[in-house]
């Protein structure tokens, strides 16, 4: 280290990062700053204003935020609960080979979001889908119109498809339950319920919170799956912003910017909590 410091002046060294930093500035930081600026500046008077945010107080926009939060929250919680179970089952599986295969499967499927996934769900749960047919044939039960793949209920199932494997994937980074703790608790006379109530769940809590926030952010930003499946039948934040970019709705672009900034704040909060919870969760797995 000292050797290299002697060789080149320290002040000129950071110049080497300029290409990368410029790239980040040009395609990430500056556009986002412009977005924030656009959301608080009145186009005609160039004055500061909060009017664009007040304009969000409209049933269409409020609903899209509500729907986005509802579907992200629901699929995050379902994903974390079932994903933890499945992840733990895989983690404790005796065969390493099968563990690896299942982890690879999770890795591939969590990235299957988007159009092909949406279409695959139409194949199984559309009006004439395989499962729809199965219910009709064996249970004489018509899924439609109570359930529809093109609605909130259907989109929920499609989202869980990429949420579950994501939870399975991030679980090993947390999984803090040590065999020794289990054995100590057992030798002190604790049953399985007591072990989980007093040790397991409290230790896993930061991991679970981290899981929920990451999955929430994952679903909140999703667009392609929703666009392919529900389009105009369900209003989501990302869909609304998409319509504004495509110019399908002639509205004040500043409203789109205000929506974008609010969703950035929501995403930022989730990622922030995720980071904090991850640090807490790691504490247990280190010692």
């Amino acid at each position, binding site marked *: 280290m000292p050797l290299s410091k002697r060789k080149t002046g320290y002040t000129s060294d950071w110049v080497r990062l300029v290409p990368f930093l410029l790239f980040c500035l040009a*395609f990430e930081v500056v556009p986002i700053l412009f977005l924030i600026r656009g959301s608080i500046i009145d186009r005609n008077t160039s004055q500061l204003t909060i009017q664009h945010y007040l304009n969000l107080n409209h049933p269409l926009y409020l609903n899209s935020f509500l729907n986005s939060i509802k579907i992200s929250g629901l699929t995050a919680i379902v994903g974390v609960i079932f994903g933890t179970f499945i992840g733990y089952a895989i983690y404790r599986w005796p065969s390493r080979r099968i563990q690896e295969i299942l982890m*690879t499967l999770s890795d591939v499927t969590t990235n299957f979001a988007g159009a092909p996934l949406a279409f695959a769900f139409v194949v199984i749960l559309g009006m*004439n889908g395989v499962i729809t047919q199965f219910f009709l044939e064996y249970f004489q039960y018509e899924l439609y119109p109570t359930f529809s793949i093109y609605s909130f209920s259907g989109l929920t199932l499609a989202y869980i498809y990429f949420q579950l494997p994501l939870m399975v994937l991030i679980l090993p980074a947390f999984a803090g339950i040590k065999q020794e703790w289990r054995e100590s608790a057992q030798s002190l006379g604790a049953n399985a319920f007591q072990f989980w109530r007093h040790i397991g769940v409290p230790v896993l809590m930061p991991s679970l919170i981290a899981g929920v926030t990451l999955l929430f952010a994952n679903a909140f930003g999703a667009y*392609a799956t929703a666009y*392919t499946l529900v389009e105009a039948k369900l209003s989501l934040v990302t869909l609304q912003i998409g319509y504004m970019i495509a110019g399908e709705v002639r509205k004040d672009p500043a409203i789109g910017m205000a929506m974008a900034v609010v969703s950035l704040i929501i995403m930022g909060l989730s990622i922030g909590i995720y980071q904090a919870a991850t640090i807490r969760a790691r504490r247990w797995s280190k010692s």
Partner: protein
Amino acid sequence: MKNPQKPLRETNKKVRPAGWQIVAVALFLFYMLLPIVSTYIFSVATRWDRTILPEGYTLEFYIRAFQTSYFIITLRNSLILSAATILVSLIVIVPTVYWVHTRLTGFKPLLDVLMILPFGIPTVVLALALVQVYNVPPLARSPILLIGAVVVYSMPFMYRPVSNAMQAIDALTLTEAGQSLGANVFQVLSKIIIPNILPGILSGSLLVFSTVFAEYTLTSLIVGAKFKTFPLLLVEYTRINGNIAAAFSVVSFTIAWLVSILILWVGTKGQNGATETIQAR
């Protein structure tokens, strides 16, 4: 979670998974595989909307899918976009990661933050921001702008494998050894560093490839029909013809599977390489 428990678990009498484990994994497999397997079957089924099993099988929809006028063009555009993104990403990220691991270690936290940032920006928001700022030609809604956007969006996928590979080798010592023999920076990078982190570069590139090849949001919102890629064609056909859309979906799924297998293969190679270096030392 690695070593301490391992011997303990192996001495455990339980060699077979518990009942609840089997049920959990079976249900998981069912959920993960049913949509995919059904799509594969749907793509070769003559008719499958009245019965539980298809009424017959045919390759007709593949022939029609491959004959659609846009198939080759969109496939080509997707490949161009992926290749360009990988190239730009490599040029921007590999030297940066190298500097951060050798001369500029103080910048690593900043780099880590910049690499998390794309996860916090929904793709629609990134698209909106870029479209608003760069609204004058030649950049406005151009494939160039799209490449910039896609590089930013896929940056973490390139960064992590490259950074991990760089961590595994002692870049500073290697650099100093090279320099003491009279090599300049470019020679050190091209002859020593890059060959040593090649597995990381390969898996990063493959990850970026599979992400960009399936990218829909940025492409449709920034350039749209002017530069139609394969995912755009797929979405279009989900509204025109389900059977052909199924064939396109199968193409998409198959590419994703193949790339994942390649990544896995490269990954195990990389691990072997890393352990060899450690043993050599």
